[in-house]
């Protein structure tokens, strides 16, 4: 993309005949530049703080926010650690998050190097299959793992019949971490493979001229180059697994292992007298942990390229030839794919077409279409599918737009608060989905005049949007940073103000990034459900909350059927988007 293509395609005032500086209206002496920049700052700050402030306030109250006669206290925090064993929850959560991160990053780096940088048969197929867990709600992935590797799972039973025992226990922190890691591998893989594709081949050529072999190049050139995406991916995985709900809820509860999210879920929803003070103080402690992470991330990546652009490059790096070793890589990749995501997904497909799915009964004897019939014969289940699609489409467009403006203000303007804006836009990454849902619920209830929004699709779009804002920001920031500043300067020198420069020049250049962010957000939002647990009403259920309810009510076959429907919608969308995006970026 060079400047000339853009400027000839769009001969706006910046290049038109005789340059005539446009005149701009000023409101209260502030140009529209200032209005837009301040506006986006206020919008982002309000949306991000809306759920956090009520949570902090509740954590300091003796009684529920809604009750009369409440006083402020620190007692909730004291009780949290003295009576409720919260220190153990913290330790378990950290152990789980560290293990998940290490397993996921190691697998992802190995796979990224193998797929992107070595000669290996079938690497294209492996690369595509690797991303599958991204499309699936972690709730169903965990359920698929229980079907295969649980104490009575198909694989467990098969292994037991051969060697007499099941050598693993899924319902332990390592078991939980392995499951979560499979869900997280695609994230780290995306970052690492993107960086590998962009890597400068001349560095490797330099190593080669010094006589380095493929393994030496791998160790001394390629892996060091992967440090920034590894750090970024690792922190993202770490914070995501700290707040994950599905795996601890399904695996941990029966054996008494509570993590942050399951602790909050149990204390906030299921008890006869929910202890809101406890719930809020647990949330605040969780938030504090996550905030520490972001500070850590910022300092680790201060000088590195913060975000990795996933784009092609003219000079394509040569693939390394590992010789016979490539078969080891090949075996590793397929073993991971088969036993990590594919078998559990196959289990889900089987569960969706059977009445019971157990090694005790031949699945062929209990094949049924009832599960799909249930999903499609009830209006509210059909509605939840429609709601999810609406939220994902509108939410992804709106959030991508807000993020685009925020990125440009943060990265390409002289706005005084551009750093705080960036930090605020990225901070929802540390707000667990459940807390976001509870916080927005309280915010909608207590800010006068907007109470009616509770339980509507608008409320869900806002909550899901805030939750995905960091992803959208992260997807667009690198491309904006790659566009040379001389284009802005050219426009400014012929009299365009900041907004005109943005809307006439930058917009064109970041459209591919915008579309990529849109696809990413759609995929995220259609499987998202944790904020909706508190926010949704009967008429605004989404696929995820419907699945959770069906699961809790024992209609497990329908959970599987709904999961398959959701994966199908996502796949169709991603394929369509791929076709469209390809057209855009080639143009």
């Amino acid at each position: 993309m060079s400047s000339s293509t853009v400027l000839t395609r769009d001969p706006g005032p910046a290049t038109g005949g005789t340059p005539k500086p446009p005149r701009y209206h000023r409101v209260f002496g502030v140009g529209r530049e200032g209005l837009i920049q301040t506006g986006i700052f206020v919008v982002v700050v309000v949306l991000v703080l809306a759920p956090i402030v009520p949570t902090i306030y509740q954590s300091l109250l003796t009684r529920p926010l809604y009750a009369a006669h409440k006083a402020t206290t620190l007692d909730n925090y004291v009780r949290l650690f003295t009576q409720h064993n919260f220190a153990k929850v913290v330790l378990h959560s950290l152990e789980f998050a560290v293990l998940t991160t290490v397993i996921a990053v190691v697998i992802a780096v190995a796979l990224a190097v193998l797929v992107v940088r070595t000669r290996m048969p079938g690497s294209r197929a492996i690369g595509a299959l690797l991303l599958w867990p991204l499309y699936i709600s972690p709730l169903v992935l965990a359920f698929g793992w229980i079907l295969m590797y649980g104490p009575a799972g198909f694989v467990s039973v098969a292994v037991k019949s051969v060697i007499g025992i099941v050598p693993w226990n899924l319902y332990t922190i390592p078991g939980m971490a392995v499951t979560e890691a499979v869900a997280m591998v695609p994230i780290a893989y995306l970052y690492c493979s993107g960086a590998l594709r962009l890597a400068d081949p001349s560095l490797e050529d330099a190593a080669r001229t010094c006589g380095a072999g493929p393994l030496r190049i791998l160790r001394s050139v390629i892996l060091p180059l992967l440090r920034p995406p590894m750090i970024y991916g690792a922190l993202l995985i770490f914070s995501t697994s700290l707040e994950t709900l599905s795996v601890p809820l399904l695996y941990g509860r029966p054996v008494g292992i509570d993590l942050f999210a399951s602790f909050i879920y149990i204390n906030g929803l299921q008890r006869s007298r929910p202890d809101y003070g406890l719930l809020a103080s647990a949330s605040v402690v969780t938030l504090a942990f996550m905030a520490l992470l972001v500070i850590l991330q910022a300092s680790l990546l201060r000088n590195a390229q913060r975000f990795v652009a996933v784009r092609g490059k003219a000079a394509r790096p040569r693939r390394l030839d590992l010789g016979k070793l490539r078969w080891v890589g090949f075996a590793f990749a397929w073993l991971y794919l088969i036993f990590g995501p594919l078998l559990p997904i196959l289990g889900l497909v089987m569960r969706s077409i059977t009445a019971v799915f157990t090694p005790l009964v031949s699945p062929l004897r209990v094949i049924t279409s009832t599960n799909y019939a249930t999903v499609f014969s009830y209006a509210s289940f059909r509605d939840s599918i429609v709601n999810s699609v609406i939220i994902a489409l509108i939410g992804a467009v709106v959030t991508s737009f807000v993020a685009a403006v925020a990125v440009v203000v943060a990265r390409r303007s002289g706005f005084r608060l551009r750093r705080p804006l960036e930090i605020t836009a990225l901070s929802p990454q540390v707000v667990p989905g459940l807390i976001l849902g509870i916080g927005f619920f309280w915010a909608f209830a207590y800010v006068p005049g907007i109470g009616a929004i509770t339980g509507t699709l608008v409320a869900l779009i806002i909550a899901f949007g805030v939750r995905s804002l960091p992803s959208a920001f992260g997807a667009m920031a690198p491309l904006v940073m790659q566009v040379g500043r001389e284009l802005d300067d050219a426009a400014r020198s012929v009299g365009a103000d900041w907004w005109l420069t943005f809307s006439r020049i930058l917009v064109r250049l970041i459209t591919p990034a915008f579309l990529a962010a849109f696809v990413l957000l759609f995929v995220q939002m259609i499987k998202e459900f944790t904020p909706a647990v508190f926010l949704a009403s009967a008429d605004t259920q989404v696929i995820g909350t419907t699945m959770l309810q069906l699961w809790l009510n024992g209609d497990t076959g329908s959970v599987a059927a709904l999961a398959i429907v959701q994966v199908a919608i996502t796949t169709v969308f991603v394929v369509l988007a791929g076709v469209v995006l390809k057209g855009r970026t080639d143009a």
Partner: protein
Amino acid sequence: MAAATLSRRSFLRGTATAGSLGALGLLAACGNGGGGTPKIAAKATSFPTYYPSSYQDIVAAAKKESGHLTVYSNMDVVNWKPIIDGFKKLYPFVESVSTNNLDSSEVFERYYSESSAHKSPASFLVSGDPGNWVRFAEGGHAMDYKSPETGKLPDFANPKPGLYTFSADPILMAWNKSLLTGNQVPTGIGDLAKLVQKDPGTYKNKITTYDVPATSFGFAIDYTYTNDRPDGWKNLQVLLPFTRPESSSGPMVEKLQSGEYVAGYFLSSTVVLPAVEQSSAVLGWSYIDDGTPMFLRGMGIPKTAPDPATAKLMLDYILSKPGQQQVYNGGFTPYRPDVTSVPRTYQKIVNKVGKDNVLIIGYENPSKSTVDTFNKRWSGYQRG
């Protein structure tokens, strides 16, 4: 009646019960031959003779309301469908009934937090959480509506002003038929405790029940059981170290079917029985021979209901004879004495297991310290 108008569960059960609906007074006006729009004029709705003549005023008031009824409940749409279908046939001017499926206590908590800040959209509440119901009724949140059906029902139908019983659902034993046979199958809590002591290997970590400290539903069951049965705690002390508690029936049933659990005690019939229909080859169930708890699911109309008249119609419908029959079709157990045409009713269970072996989980509201002490003891046993 066409299959499409029935819930999946009642369809599976066959049309026996559905066919009996035609004979009922309340539905007399409803000559729905299947498929087509019900040919009912709302005016023609005739009520049983024991209804006061002023009842038409409530119907008239309901017609002036929004035509939508928002329900907060702890039940799935699958369970609600037969009831709503029956209700809408009777009152076609009610366009929609939205049923929020929440956790038992969330039904109340959501209502409280909404109504403190603005008006809650909920006009009707249904939940299985005795303590919260008592606090709701005694806290003055319930509309003190006297249903004309009260006289036809047992005492526990209307224990407090404004508080009514929706259904009386038995709490069961369940097991995996492929894994437990003959004497291994538990008949009750005491029996299971003996089996576990005799053959720990078969049962260790393979029996399940409700997570009592985490769920109000589970607390109510275990609280009633230990209060009514002197050997209750002794049995729990034996069983709990072998037990993996779950926070809802769904995972219990799924894992019983897969063989991860061999047996479960104190499971909710509303989840077990529909699952048995689907996989009777795998899942076995029975009443509990040393005490079958009966869970009274409560319902009521909040004082702030935006559509109070419509809510009253719904309450009376659920208590009525055809309503209680649809309660059965939704997977619950009706308790109205003159409902006899369905295979499972409160009275039939009492006849079967004996009056002394029915433990009614009443509307009790133990103090917070009682609850905490109870939970502590339970968790202590569970950790062994």
